[in-house]
């Protein structure tokens, strides 16, 4: 049954959105064997035999199948040679980078499985391989693309070594930490890794996805992708809560944390809830010397996709104000099915200076691009 919903396609295309910085781009491989070139022999063999092992029942597929082929890709993003969306740089340039005159694209490689791998030595090796692969296949051929340092969060020594090895390499914009680690990221066991990120001038990007083996919600496993997809917001909120309440930002005031692919409209209410609840429970977290919302304002940035669509489009403006227009950075999430097009993402015209910040200036400042 088709129902017409009021959802006008407002084209807000104006020159100021061109030349934007895309804070979430997904590169893919044409074949898993691509990583072999960057793996030591023993791990090549391991990859081909036992292979990657995650904390879920299915070895090679997602527990929550997506709604479109290629594990949730845009239907028109398949390159002419039939390889996976995002795996063909010329096609990515055609559909995204050149089309919109993108200034920089920040890569979020959700490939290789290094981040969630249970064999942490293999995971560390895969993370390093994916980092080398990003450079070889994407960042070196097209310097608009910036890599994200992959690590295996549970292998502290290797993670810190990898961060330090990539420090100063301006082809990498940030360290990508999987947001579903075994424990919430603010827990002290992860502080050495966060310290290494801060010490080496890397923002941390938390791109949703993966599994640590816990149910996606506190009430158990969703049945459908339909309720799995919005559970990413719940995970993002948990991360913000943990980072703030554990005092990470008191300890590392210069650490920048970027939340990727979680949307953002939920953040103001979380900040208010943190502040209000903290009032009665201050004694539990005496190391917090400021209100929780102040840490959110100091250390956390959000990317826009999947952008929420308020029922009254103008409510987007107040939502942006409540977060702080300087803390919001545009992202497409190319080439996923729910990606945002810079021309249509905002259903309300933005003031010109907001556009410059959201599409460009905020990311320039966060990532220190020239």
């Amino acid at each position, binding site marked *: 049954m088709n129902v017409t919903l009021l959802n006008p396609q407002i084209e807000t295309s104006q020159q100021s959105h061109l030349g934007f910085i895309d804070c979430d781009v997904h590169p893919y491989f044409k074949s898993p064997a691509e990583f072999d070139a960057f793996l030591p022999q023993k791990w090549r063999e391991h990859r081909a035999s036992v292979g990657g092992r995650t904390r879920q029942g299915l070895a090679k597929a997602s527990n929550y199948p997506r709604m479109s082929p290629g594990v949730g890709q845009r239907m028109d993003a398949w390159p002419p040679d039939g390889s996976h969306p995002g795996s063909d740089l010329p096609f990515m340039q055609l559909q995204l980078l050149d089309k919109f005159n993108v200034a920089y694209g920040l890569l979020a490689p959700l490939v290789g499985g290094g981040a969630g791998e249970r064999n942490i030595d293999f995971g560390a090796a895969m993370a390093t391989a994916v980092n080398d692969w990003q450079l070889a296949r994407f960042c070196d051929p097209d310097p608009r693309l910036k890599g994200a340092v992959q690590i295996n969060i549970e292998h502290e020594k290797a993670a810190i070594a990898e961060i330090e090895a990539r420090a100063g390499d301006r082809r990498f914009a940030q360290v990508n930490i999987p947001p579903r680690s075994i424990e*919430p990221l603010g827990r002290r066991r992860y502080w050495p890794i966060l310290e290494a990120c801060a010490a080496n001038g890397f923002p941390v990007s938390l791109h949703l996805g993966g599994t640590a083996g816990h149910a996606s919600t506190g009430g158990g496993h969703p049945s459908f992708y339909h309720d799995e997809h919005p559970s990413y917001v*719940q995970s993002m909120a948990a991360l913000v809560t943990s980072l703030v*309440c554990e005092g990470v930002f008191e300890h590392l005031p210069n650490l920048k944390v970027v939340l990727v692919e979680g949307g953002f409209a939920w953040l103001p209410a979380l900040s208010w809830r943190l502040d209000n*609840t903290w009032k*009665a429970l201050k004694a539990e*977290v005496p190391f917090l010397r400021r209100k929780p919302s102040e840490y959110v304002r100091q250390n956390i940035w959000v990317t826009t996709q999947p952008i*929420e669509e308020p029922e009254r489009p103008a409510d987007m403006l107040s939502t942006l104000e409540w977060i702080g227009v300087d803390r919001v950075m545009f992202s497409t999430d190319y080439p996923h099915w729910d990606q945002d097009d810079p021309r249509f993402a905002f259903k309300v015209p933005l003031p010109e200076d907001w556009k410059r910040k959201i599409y460009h200036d905020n990311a320039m400042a966060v990532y220190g691009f020239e």
Partner: protein
Amino acid sequence: MDPSSFQPIDCDVHPAIPTTRALLPYLDAYWREHITRRGLEADNLELNSFPSNAPLNSRPDWRPERGPAGADLTLLRRHVLDTFRSRYAILNVLNGAQILHSEDLSAALCRGINRWIAAEWLDRDPRLRASITVPVLSPELAAEEIERCAEDKRFVQVLLLSQTEMPLGRRQYWPVYRAAEKHGLPIGIHAGSAQFHPPSATGWFSYYLEDYVQHAQGFAGTLNSLLTEGVFVKFPKLRVVLIESGVTWFPAYMWRINKTWRGVRAETPWQERVPSEVIRENVRLTVQPFDAPDTVAQVKTLLEEIGSDQMLLFSTDYPHWHFDGADAVPEGLPPDLIGKILVDNPLETYPRLAQPDLA
């Protein structure tokens, strides 16, 4: 704002069971013997979600000298019933009996709780009403208990915790919804977790503060499940009240699930209507905690975004600490909405309240 001039209906009050021993007279003989044999009457079945001495759960001026806050009817009257001139208050028991793994033991204790509430609270003050406490791990036994308690019209709701073993929309729970809908009883989903799962996909937090904050997200998952599984399609007359969930999280939540539905609804073809429409018809929120923003102007915007005068229900959440003094109504509510929140919406949500006085 002090609501007493309205004689409000308080939709969330927590009587505390002083000790499990207090339930013994209300158990069947077999269970009385069984529990005593095992020494279980000495167990404190307090939920991890609500440590009774945490300041958040026990407003300092509501805390008695001995025992948990909320255990004394005299104090309940003094602190909220008489202070606010409440015409009714709905009692919601928060107790671990609901989440015990042994289904029969859980059901027996829940039955004891319901009998205890009737005898020691409902019988003693005509303003009091209660939710039916049910074993969350056995929908069949829960449905039986609903059938048993439904006869007593002072039971006005079925009480569930928002996070247990499976998301609450799943079909295994449908016997509960069937029984509730049949008797015109709303499902009250209260903040709290059985902690069969960690609070989020990213594991266990360190602090109670974090657990408590995350309840709002827990409710998002719960409500998403009710929607996607088609509970409101199968049980169109069912009302669901989200109790102690916070309020200001709600608009952004609706925007997100609406957008997901537009893109993903092929997976759940029974969902023919946009979620926010179903939500406004079937779902209600109690107002404490409100999770207030910084300004009254923001409150106004958020209420407009919630988009329904009928959504909010007054509650004190006694003895939890969400407001000081008699300031039980969140600041910034427009005057024409206040009366609805305090009286009309609760009456509309709980049809049993309107029934003439019961023996």
